[in-house]
C-alpha cells in the first residue's frame, strides 16, 4: 500500500515494455533502456524485449550492444523477423 492507501501498481513485464516503448517513441532513450532492462530482469526469456532494447541501442548508435541484443532476441525466437533485419543491417549484409 502506498501513502494514499491505494494498492501499489505492480510493475508487470508487459507494463514495463509498454513504458519502455513510450520512452523510445519520445526519444528518451536512456529511460527506455532502464525499463527494458527491468522487464528482462523479470522475464529473461522474451525475444521481443531484447529486440526493443537492441533498437534503442541502435538508435543511440551503440551498435555493439544493439548487436548483442538482436542476437539474443533471435536465439530465443529464430523467427523474430525484425531482429533479423536489424542485425543484418548492422553487420553490413
Amino acid at each position, binding site marked *: 500500500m502506498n501513502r494514499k492507501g491505494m494498492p501499489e501498481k505492480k510493475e508487470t513485464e508487459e507494463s514495463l515494455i509498454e513504458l519502455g516503448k513510450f520512452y523510445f*517513441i519520445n*526519444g528518451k532513450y*536512456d529511460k527506455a533502456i532502464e525499463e527494458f532492462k527491468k522487464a528482462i530482469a523479470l522475464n529473461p526469456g522474451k525475444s521481443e524485449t531484447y529486440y526493443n532494447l537492441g*533498437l534503442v541501442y*541502435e*538508435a*543511440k*548508435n551503440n551498435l555493439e550492444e544493439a548487436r548483442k541484443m538482436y542476437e539474443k532476441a533471435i536465439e530465443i525466437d529464430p523467427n523474430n523477423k*525484425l531482429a533479423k533485419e536489424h542485425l543484418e543491417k548492422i553487420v553490413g549484409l
Partner: protein
Amino acid sequence: MTKKQFLVVGLGTFGENVAKYLTEKGAQVIAIDKDEKKVQNIAHFVTQALTADATDEKFLKSLNPEEIDVGIVAIGESLEDSVLVTLHMKELGVKKIVVKCINQLHARISAKLGADRIVYPELEMAKRVAEGLISPNILEEIELSPEYNIVELIVPKKFIGKTIKQAKIRSEYNLNIIAIKRKVPYLTDSGESDFKEEINISPFPDDELNDGDILVVIGKDSDVERLKKE
C-alpha cells in the same frame, strides 16, 4: 541520347559487380573474361558477355574500341595481363580507362600508360575500416583536400537537447553542419516499435540536436578532431 558504352575486362568479384551495376544504371556493357564459367554467370545481366583473351590486340580491335566510352581493366591475378590490356585500350582509342590495381607498382605503371583513373579497392577499404576502428565516432569521411573533410559523426553527448546555435558548432569549432541524420522511432500497425531514418539537409540554427543524431559536418580536420573529443 545514345547509351554510354562500357567494356569490362576481368570478371572477378570487382569486375562482375561493376558490370552489373553499370547495366542496372542503363549503360551498354560488354564483359570479358578468359574463364567461361565467369562469363556464363554474368551473361544474363549484361549487354554482351564474351569468353576471350583481352590481351589479344586483334580481338580487342574487333570490338570497335573507338566507340567505347570507358574501359575498365579489372584483372586481379596477373599484372602483366592488366598492363597489356591497358596499353591496347589506350592505343586503340578507348576514350577513358579505369584500372583496378593490386599494388603501388601496378598503379604507377598503369598511370604511365595513360590510365585515367586508378582504383585500389583493397587499400581504400583498408583505410576506411582502420579509420572506423580507431575513431568509432566517425562513421564516414570524404576527403576534400588534405586539410578539409566532410565527416559523419555521432552527436557529442554535451550537445544533446541543445540547438545548433546553442552548441556553437560554427562559432567555436569553425564547422558547418550540412545535414543531420536522425532515426525517428514509430510504432508499426501491429504495435511493434521500429525506427526510420530521416535526413535534414541544411538544418536551421534553431533545430535541436537529439540523442542518436548523426551530424554531417564540413570543415578542417583539426576542428573535427576537437569536436570529436567532446
